[in-house]
C-alpha cells in the first residue's frame, strides 16, 4: 500500500529505542512540549509579581504547545527553506508506512481525515461521559454527589469539549477525507496546514482537560462561553480553557480556509458549480463561517487572557471596561459557529438521501441557495443571544426578525426532503434511517428555535432548559445523527468492510427513541422555569428530571453500541464489502478500496450530475481518460 508522507527524512517503521527518543515523533514531541512548558511556566512566574500566576500558566501552555508542534515537525519545511534548500515534495511515495503515519504529520488528506474522525469521536465519548455525570447530579433535586464548583466545571467541560467536537467532527473527518475525492483532486490545497489543523485538536483537548487538576487551577466555573468578567476573576483553571478554546478556533479557521481554497481551485475539469456534490456545496457555505468567525473568538480570548495576566481591563467595569464588549464579540463568533455545526449535516443528509431514494435530489439549486443563504444571514443574528442583557431596545426588533427570516433558507432542506421522497423507491438501509431521523430531530430543533427568536417569549425561556433542549436537538439530534449516517454510509469505502447490520439497527432504534425521550422533556422543564447550569431546581420538576436522567443513560448506552459496532466491524469482521454497496453515482465509489494515496492515477473529466438516479439514460458522473492521454492536474504539483 502506497501512502503519501512528509519528506522529513524519517526512517521506515521498526522499533528501536534510539529511533523512539531521538527522532521527530509523537513521544519526543510530548517530552519536549512538557519540558518547554515547565520552563516557560517558571520564567513566567518569575516575571509575574502581581498575581496568582496566570502569566506563568498562559506562557507555559503556549510555549509548551509550540515546542510540541515544532518537535513534531511543523517547522521542518520552514527551516529547509530558510537554509536555501528545496522544499520537500508534497507527493512523495513512502512504501509501507503502516499505522505509524496516524501518529505523526501526514500530508495525505485521507490519513488526516481518519485522524480527525478517531480523535474527535474519542472526544465525543469523553464529553458524553461528562453529560452522564451531569445527569447523575441532576437525579438529586438539591445538588447531587458533586459539590457546586465541580458541577459547574463539569458543565463547562461538557460544553466546551462538545463545542470542539461539533465544530470539527464533520468538517475534519468527512470534509478532509472526501472533499478532494468528490471534486476530483489528488490532495488538499494546503496539506501541511491540514495536518497542522488536526494536531491543534488533541493539543486543545489535552490543555482543556489539564485544567481539572489542582495544580492547573482545579477547573473553571464559567460554562462554555466564558463570560467576562467572571472568566477574568476565575481561578487559574480558566487559563487552560481559553488557550484550549483558542487552539480549536484556530484549527477550525485553518481547516476552513484550506477546504475553501481546495474547492475553489482544485476541481477536476468539467466539475462545474452545478455538478458539484451537495456536500461540497455545504462545505463552501460553512467554510466562509469557519474561516471568518473563529478569529473574532480568538481575539476575545486573548483579551480575556490579557485581562487575567496583565490586568488590561477590557472587561472590568470598575476600570472602564464593559462586559458587553465580550458578549458582542463572543456571539458574533458564536452564532455563525452554530451554523458551522448544522450546515455540514444538511450536506450529508442531502448527499445520502438521493442514493437511497433512487431519485434525483429535488431542488438542488434551491438547496444550495438555502445553505448559502443560511451562511450569509448567520452573520446578522448574533444579538438574539443577548436579548435580556440590556442591549439597546431598538436593536431587538431587527435581530428578532432577522433570526426568524433565517428559517426560510433553512426550511428549504425540508422541501428537498419531501420532493426527493415523492414517489421514490426507498431502500431502507441504515444510512437512510439515520438521515430520516436527522430530519425529524432537526424539525423539532428548528421550530423550537423560532420560539427563542421572539423577544417576549425569550424573556421567559432564555437561560433555561428550553434553550438546552433546542440546541441539543439541532447539534446532537441533527449533527451527530449526520455523523452516524456518514459513518454507516462511508465506512465500507474507508475500511473496505460493512458495518454490522444487526448492531446498526439496534443502535438506530435505541438512539432515535432514547434521544427523543431524553430531550423532549427538556422543553417542558425549560418552560416551567428550570435554569441552566444549576445543580438545584424546583421540587415540582424532580420527577421529570429523574425521567430525563434515566433516558439519558440509555441514550449513552446506545452510543456505546455505535462504538462497539465501529470497532467490531473494523477490526474483527473478515468479509470484504462490495466495491459500491449502495450503488452510488458519486466519484468516491468509483475508486478502488482502499483509495490509493494520490486518489486518481489520472484526473477524471466530470461529464454528468451526481444525482441522476432512476434515469436510465443518465451519463456517468466521471470519465477517466485512457492510460495514454493523462490530463494535467489542475494545479502544478510542486
Amino acid at each position: 500500500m502506497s501512502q503519501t508522507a512528509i519528506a522529513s527524512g524519517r526512517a521506515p517503521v521498526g522499533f528501536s529505542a534510539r529511533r523512539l527518543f531521538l527522532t521527530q515523533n509523537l513521544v519526543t514531541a510530548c517530552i519536549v512540549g512538557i519540558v518547554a512548558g515547565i520552563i516557560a511556566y517558571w520564567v513566567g512566574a518569575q516575571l509575574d509579581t502581581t498575581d496568582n500566576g496566570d502569566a506563568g500558566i498562559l506562557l507555559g501552555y503556549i510555549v509548551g504547545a509550540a515546542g510540541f508542534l515544532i518537535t513534531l515537525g511543523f517547522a521542518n519545511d520552514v527551516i529547509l527553506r530558510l537554509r536555501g534548500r528545496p522544499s520537500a515534495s508534497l507527493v512523495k511515495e513512502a512504501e509501507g508506512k503502516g499505522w505509524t503515519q496516524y501518529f505523526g504529520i501526514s500530508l495525505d488528506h485521507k490519513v488526516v481525515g481518519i485522524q480527525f474522525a478517531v480523535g474527535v469521536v474519542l472526544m465525543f465519548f469523553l464529553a458524553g461521559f461528562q453529560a452522564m455525570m451531569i445527569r447523575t447530579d441532576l437525579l438529586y433535586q438539591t445538588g447531587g454527589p458533586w459539590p457546586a464548583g465541580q458541577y459547574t466545571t463539569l458543565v463547562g467541560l461538557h460544553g466546551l469539549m462538545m463545542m470542539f467536537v461539533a465544530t470539527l467532527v464533520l468538517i475534519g473527518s468527512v470534509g478532509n477525507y472526501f472533499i478532494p475525492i468528490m471534486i476530483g483532486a489528488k490532495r488538499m490545497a494546503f496539506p501541511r496546514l491540514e495536518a497542522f489543523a488536526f494536531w491543534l485538536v488533541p493539543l486543545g483537548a489535552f490543555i482543556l482537560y489539564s485544567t481539572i487538576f489542582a495544580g492547573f487551577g482545579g477547573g473553571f466555573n464559567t460554562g462554555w462561553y466564558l463570560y467576562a468578567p467572571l472568566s477574568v476573576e476565575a481561578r487559574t483553571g480558566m487559563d487552560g480553557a481559553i488557550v484550549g478554546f483558542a487552539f480549536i478556533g484556530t484549527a477550525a479557521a485553518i481547516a476552513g480556509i484550506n477546504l475553501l481554497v481546495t474547492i475553489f481551485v482544485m476541481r477536476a475539469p468539467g466539475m462545474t458549480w452545478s455538478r458539484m456534490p451537495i456536500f461540497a456545496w455545504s462545505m463552501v457555505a460553512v467554510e466562509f463561517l469557519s474561516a471568518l468567525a473563529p478569529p473574532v473568538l480568538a481575539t476575545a480570548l486573548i483579551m480575556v487572557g490579557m485581562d487575567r495576566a496583565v490586568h488590561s481591563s477590557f472587561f472590568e467595569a470598575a476600570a472602564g471596561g464593559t462586559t458587553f464588549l465580550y458578549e458582542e464579540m463572543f456571539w458574533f463568533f458564536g452564532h455563525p459557529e452554530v451554523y458551522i455545526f448544522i450546515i455540514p449535516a444538511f450536506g450529508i443528509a442531502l448527499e445520502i438521501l438521493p442514493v437511497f431514494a433512487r431519485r434525483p435530489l429535488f431542488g438542488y439549486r434551491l438547496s444550495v441557495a438555502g445553505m448559502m443563504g443560511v451562511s450569509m444571514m448567520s452573520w446578522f443574528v448574533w444579538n438574539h443571544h443577548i436579548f435580556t442583557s440590556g442591549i439597546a431596545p431598538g436593536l431587538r426588533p431587527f435581530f428578532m426578525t432577522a433570526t426568524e427570516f433565517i428559517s426560510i433558507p433553512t426550511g428549504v432542506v425540508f422541501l428537498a426532503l419531501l420532493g426527493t421522497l415523492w414517489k421514490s423507491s426507498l431502500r431502507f438501509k441504515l444510512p437512510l434511517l439515520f438521515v430520516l431521523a436527522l430530519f425529524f430531530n432537526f424539525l423539532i430543533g428548528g421550530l423550537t428555535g423560532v420560539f427563542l427568536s421572539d423577544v417576549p417569549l425569550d424573556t421567559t425561556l432564555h437561560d433555561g432548559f428550553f434553550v438546552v433542549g433546542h440546541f441539543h436537538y439541532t447539534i446532537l439530534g441533527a449533527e451527530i445523527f449526520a455523523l452516524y449516517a456518514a459513518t454507516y454510509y462511508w465506512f465500507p469505502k474507508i475500511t473496505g468492510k460493512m458495518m454490522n447490520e444487526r448492531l446498526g439497527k439496534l443502535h438506530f432504534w435505541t438512539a432515535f427513541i432514547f434521544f427523543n425521550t431524553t430531550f423532549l422533556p427538556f422543553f417542558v422543564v425549560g418552560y416551567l422555569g428550570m435554569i441552566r447550569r444549576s445543580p438545584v431546581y424546583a421540587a415540582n420538576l424532580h420527577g421529570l428530571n429523574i425521567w430525563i436522567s434515566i433516558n439519558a443513560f440509555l441514550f449513552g448506552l446506545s452510543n456505546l453500541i455505535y462504538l462497539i459496532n465501529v470497532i467490531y466491524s473494523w477490526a474483527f469482521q473478515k468479509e470484504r464489502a462490495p466495491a459500491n454497496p449502495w450503488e452510488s453515482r458519486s466519484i468516491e465509489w468509483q475508486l478502488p478500496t482502499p483509495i490509493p494515496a494520490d486518489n486518481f492515477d489520472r484526473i477524471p473529466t466530470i461529464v454528468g450530475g451526481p444525482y441522476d438516479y432512476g434515469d436510465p439514460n443518465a451519463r456517468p458522473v466521471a470519465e477517466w481518460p485512457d492510460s495514454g492521454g493523462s490530463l494535467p492536474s489542475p494545479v502544478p504539483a510542486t
Partner: protein
Amino acid sequence: MSTKRHLIIPAIIAAILAVIGDLLVVFVLHLPPGHATTAANDDTFTGQVFTIISWSVGIAVVTFAVYFLFLSARTPEETSFRRVYLRRHLGLQAAWLATSVVLVLFAAEVGVVALEGQVSPNLVVPASALAAGATHDPLIVQVIGQQWQFTYRYPQYGGFETNQLRLPTDRLIQFDVTSLDVSHSFSAYQLAVKIDAISGINNVGYVYILKPTVIDVRCGELCGLWHGYMTDVGSQAGEAVTQSQFASWVSYAQRVYGPQEQNLPKFALTYYPAPTTY
C-alpha cells in the same frame, strides 16, 4: 389523477391533525408563565401563537414525509424516470418560499406588537401595561445582583435595602438592575421578567402586576460557584401583594432595615466596589 390524490390525502390528514393540536393548545394546554402581569400575558399569548405555528408546520411536514414513505414502498424502482421526473418544480418551490415568508412575517409581527412601547431607547413604558391602566409614575425598585444573592432597594421610601422582594399590584414598577461583581440575571418567573445584572450598567425594565402572586427569583446567568443556589423561592422571598398590604410592609421594612441605611453607600444607579484583591 393519482398525483393529485397523493397530495390531497396527506394534506387533509395534516389539516385535521393540525386543527386538533391547535384546539388543544388554545383550550387545554395552559402555557406558563400565566397571567400575573401584563408581560406574562404577552409571553403566554406569543407562546400560544408560536406553539400553534410550530405544531401546524411540524405536523404538516411529518405527515407528508410519512405518507411519501408509505407511497414509495409501493413504487417499483424501475418506474419510468420521465413519469416521476421531479428534479425541480418552479411553482412548488415558489409556493414553499412564499408560505414560509408569510409565516415568518406573521411571527415577527406578533413579536414586534408585543414589543410596542419598549422599542424606543428612551425607555418608554410598555404599551400593554399602559393599556392595563399603568400611569407614568412608577415605583422604582433597584435590584442589585451580587455573588450570590439579589438585594432590593426602594429609593422612593428612603432607600432601605432588603433581600425580600415585595411589590404592589396595579402599579407600574420600574426595575433598575445592576450588579456589584460579575454578570447575573434577575429572572422573576411569574412576572415574566428577565433582566441581566451587569456591573457598571443600569438595566431598566417595567412590569405591571395584575394580581397577587408568589414570585420565584432565580439567577439566570452563570455567576460562579454558588450560581445554582442563588434562588429565592416561595412567598418568604418574593411576593406581589395588594397596595395596602404593600404600604404596611414598607412601613415595617423601614422600621427594620432603615437603621442600617447609614452603613449603605448612597443610592446610585450603579456601584463600583473596590477592586477585588487577589
